């Protein structure tokens, strides 16, 4: 059950986000099931505006990740507070396979490495990123490992045998 402080914070946040992003969809999340209090869905790159709103409200960027769906990527930004009234906000945007979203590293410098990791694993290039190189894989790698089209191991076939 959200506490009073949390509810107030969520309300304020909802208002500032709606003002900053008229085109996005902001819904309350089911914390008990998904672990987030507020969910923001966008269909284009308004990430920087969200990031600025979040920074003004003293949230920190916990992590950024991407998921490879057939036909699109989903970029997910996780924000969280450090107060007693914890409040988690997840911002998702759906982008096409060769889209170039804007970087948020101007607002949160910690995103430099997070976005490099996403580039390294998925091949998603970020606009205006100061230093877009591979992070974890070798510098001369020509593959993006976490794409679904990149090699399935033999183990999966064995698993299919076990489970069927």
């Amino acid at each position, binding site marked *: 059950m959200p506490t009073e402080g949390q509810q107030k914070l969520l309300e304020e946040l909802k208002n500032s986000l709606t003002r900053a992003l008229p085109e996005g969809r902001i819904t309350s999340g089911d914390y008990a099931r998904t672990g987030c209090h507020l969910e923001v869905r966008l269909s284009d790159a308004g990430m920087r505006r969200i990031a600025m709103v979040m920074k003004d409200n003293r949230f920190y960027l*916990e*992590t950024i990740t991407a998921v490879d769906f057939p036909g699109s990527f989903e970029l997910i930004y996780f924000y*969280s507070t450090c107060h007693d009234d914890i409040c988690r906000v997840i911002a998702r945007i759906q982008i096409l396979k060769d889209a170039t979203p804007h970087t948020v590293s101007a607002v949160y410098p910690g995103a*430099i*490495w997070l976005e490099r990791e996403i580039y390294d694993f998925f091949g998603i290039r970020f606009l205006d990123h100061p230093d877009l190189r591979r992070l974890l894989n070798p510098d001369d790698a020509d593959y993006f490992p976490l794409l679904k089209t990149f090699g399935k*191991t033999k183990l*999966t076939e064995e698993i299919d045998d076990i*489970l069927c």
Partner: protein
Amino acid sequence: MLNIKTIDDTSINERVYQLNLGPQHPSTHGVLHLLLKLDGEVVVAAEPIVGYSHRGHEKMAENRIWEQFLPNTSRIDYLSGLIYNQGYCMALEKLCGIEVPERAEYIRVITSELNRISSHLLGIMAFVMDIGAFTPFLYGFDDREHVLDLLERVTGSRLTYCYNRFGGVRNDIDQEFCDGTRRFIARLRGRFKDYHNLITENIIFIKRTRGVGIITEETALEFGVTGPSLRGSGVNYDVRKNEPYSIYPEFDFEIPVRKEGDVMARYQVRMAEMEQSMNIIEQALDNLPQGPVRSHVPRFIDPPAGDIYFAFESARGAVGYYIVSDGTRIPYRIKVRTPSFSNLFVLTRVLPGNFIADAIATLGSIDVVVPEIDR
């Protein structure tokens, strides 16, 4: 605007030379490569280069069934293996709606806190060894042996555990484990006096760590620093208190916070955290209920389609599992948010302007485990 000096950004200056700290080096904790640009003894720019122990855990997750990813979790951060195990199991239990018996929760908390103590012992003592005092490292390892022996009796492993299961833990603990833990806590409390005498009150140590490697609260929040590194900078944030999970709300413990943000503050936070962990373990042992240690769960679990983000506190900071399930027995995506990833990157902002010796002290005090960054 962005103020980081990336390594190629330094203006051409004849006095500046480049020094590679690592990847093979006696003091980098794991296979870390720190590229330093130095002017004499002063660091002008620093860039960590990671990826030497990248094993592809997140890709492995997409090629295994849910149960088979359990051993991977403890190898991501090998010093907090039990805590990562617990987090993964709790995330899936939340997703599937599985209930965990109370005794299992207590056992999970006891073993996780013992793991936290052993991780802090290693982290602190390795940092002190980097500063130059070789002896406390071995005293800390002596204490750590006791913890590892206790955990080995129960879980079967010393470092990379796979003890938690969906719905509880694998097997029960016995009376000898409880007695041994109590004896260990009494012994460690006595040893703390020695540690404070030898390290904390040593004038050379104080001079090496006071006012060195300061991380301000602003910088910490901008970079997503969590854990003792954040609590040493004055922010009272611990997932166990701010966003309680498991049965942590039932225990009475404090979160140590220091304001200075220097190396000494982080060291003191870690020492105080060990004492708080001991309090938690004692309370848990006193109130340990009887009952089963694992609820009845099908052999292969079938989580519903959906996603969940579950956060918990390891020895290094806030960890998060972001799990996407498509309704099958194989995960669609598992993303592990590790604290060392953000904690290490903050060094690009903190190190410039310090001496090399201070750079080593700061790197040690952040307590990085590189496999956690590389996954």
